[in-house]
């Protein structure tokens, strides 16, 4: 075994002390110290699939856009249409460079405060926050009425995910959150304090993501834990978050997508509105769509017990036809799963081999996602 990396100069979320008090194993992630697990990753994963799990996702970037023209600005930056996003709507989108490479994948929400102020909220990956701020900055000059505010440090974000999440925590909020549709968000109150409730997540389960002021984070987290104690709610770390999102075949930035992977080959065509729109990267993406992407993201079930990890070459015969982007054991399926980017001429192959550090292992293509909730 190698010694764990030592951590220095890392940011802490408002829930940092809670994680430490509960025995969270803290690791550096995207400039933050985050819990990778409290006890067993598999137990935390299972809690999410059967009851509900709480995740501190305060490290994710939260950027607020106020003023006339916000939707035009975001529409220009994102691969998905924002202009027709109704109040309370949430959309998954990618932000691309001119070549169509993915700068980040984001959630954009259109919200209204109790005092009828409307704004857009962009949730970006922690690892990309500074890059995205720098990317957007020059475009603000073209939209002088728009202001962008980085709300990340002032707020905390808590994901409550699992089949029992909505039913159990519903009573905590002033409004009935069960009436919130999937991919809808609202601003309501918890204990007379404002909270954004968004019916979204990164686990493949039903659930919500809550955004509260940083100083309210611990109270809200503990209220949710207490509320779900008898139902088996568990705090879960980044380890379970990764196995859960892999089973749900959700991309992770830096793995399934990056600046040299476009959203079409990553299987994110649904997040690209290419018709009758003009946005950064539109011409490149239209050209890629017309000629067909050269690679495609596929799902693989790996034979045996040994997981295939990111970077392992995927072969047909002796020819390398792709590479694993993410892989690991699937606690729900009980077998190793992996996602890979495969060259187009081989993307319909059923039986592949994976080179796991010099050893060949058989893998079968399967449709994504690996897990779909009932």
């Amino acid at each position, binding site marked *: *075994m190698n010694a764990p990396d030592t951590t220095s100069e890392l940011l802490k979320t408002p829930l940092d002390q809670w994680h430490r008090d509960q025995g969270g194993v803290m690791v550096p992630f995207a400039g933050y110290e985050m819990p990778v697990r409290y006890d*067993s990753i598999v137990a935390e994963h299972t809690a999410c699939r059967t009851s509900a799990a709480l995740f501190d996702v305060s490290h994710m970037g939260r950027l607020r856009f106020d003023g006339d023209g916000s939707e035009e600005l975001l529409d220009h930056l994102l691969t998905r249409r924002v202009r027709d996003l109704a109040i309370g709507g949430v959309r998954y989108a990618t932000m691309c460079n001119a070549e169509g490479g993915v700068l980040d994948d984001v959630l954009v929400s259109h919200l209204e405060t109790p005092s009828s102020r409307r704004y857009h909220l962009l949730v970006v990956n922690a690892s990309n926050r500074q890059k995205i701020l720098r990317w957007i900055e020059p475009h603000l000059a073209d939209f002088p009425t728009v202001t962008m505010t980085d709300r990340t440090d002032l707020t905390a974000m808590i994901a409550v995910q699992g089949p029992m999440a909505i039913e159990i925590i519903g009573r905590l909020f002033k409004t009935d959150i069960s009436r919130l549709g999937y991919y809808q968000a609202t601003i309501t109150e918890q204990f007379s304090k404002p909270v954004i409730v968004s019916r979204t997540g990164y686990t493949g389960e039903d659930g919500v993501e809550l955004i509260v002021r940083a100083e309210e984070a611990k109270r809200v987290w503990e209220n949710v834990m207490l509320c779900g104690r008898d139902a088996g709610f568990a705090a879960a770390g980044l*380890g379970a978050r*990764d196995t859960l999102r892999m089973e749900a075949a959700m991309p992770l930035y830096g793995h399934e997508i990056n600046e040299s992977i476009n959203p079409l080959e990553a299987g994110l065509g649904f997040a690209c509105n290419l018709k009758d729109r003009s946005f950064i990267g539109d011409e490149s993406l239209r050209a890629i769509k017309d000629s067909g992407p050269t690679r495609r993201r596929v799902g693989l079930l790996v034979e045996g*017990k*040994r997981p295939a990890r990111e970077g392992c070459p995927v072969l047909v015969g002796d020819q390398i036809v792709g590479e694993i982007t993410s892989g690991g054991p699937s606690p729900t399926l009980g077998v190793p799963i992996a996602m890979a980017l495969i060259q187009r001429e081989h993307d319909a192959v059923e039986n592949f081999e994976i080179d796991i550090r010099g050893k060949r292992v058989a893998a079968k293509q399967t449709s994504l996602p690996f897990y779909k909730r009932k």
Partner: protein
Amino acid sequence: MSRDPAALHYADTHEWVDLDSDGIATVGISSFAIEQLNDLVYMDLPEVGTILELGQEFGEVESVKAVSPLYSPVAGEIIEVHSELPDQLEKLNDDPYDFGWILKVKTSGEAPSQLMDHPTYQKQCAEAG
């Protein structure tokens, strides 16, 4: 017979060594390492007959989250491999020092000077947190 963790030698890479009077070293990984790794899913072991140098990578153990190489805490020839272990990794948690042995290695009979005794190893673990 049950092995006493306090009587074993330890490498800074968390392998334990039980050296008998015939120079046969039994090698495993410590309960601290198993706890740190968490949720083991796979172990890759070498062949009997392999000659190991001190500190040589001889296999790997894999958890849900990561792959960790295993390093030989002794030098010598592998004379036995615990081949049932990879299929029963869950037992490693409860019984790292008896059921959890990984290799038996024929050594010169001297414990390498780099190895730590139990109190020193425990101190290292406490510092690693």
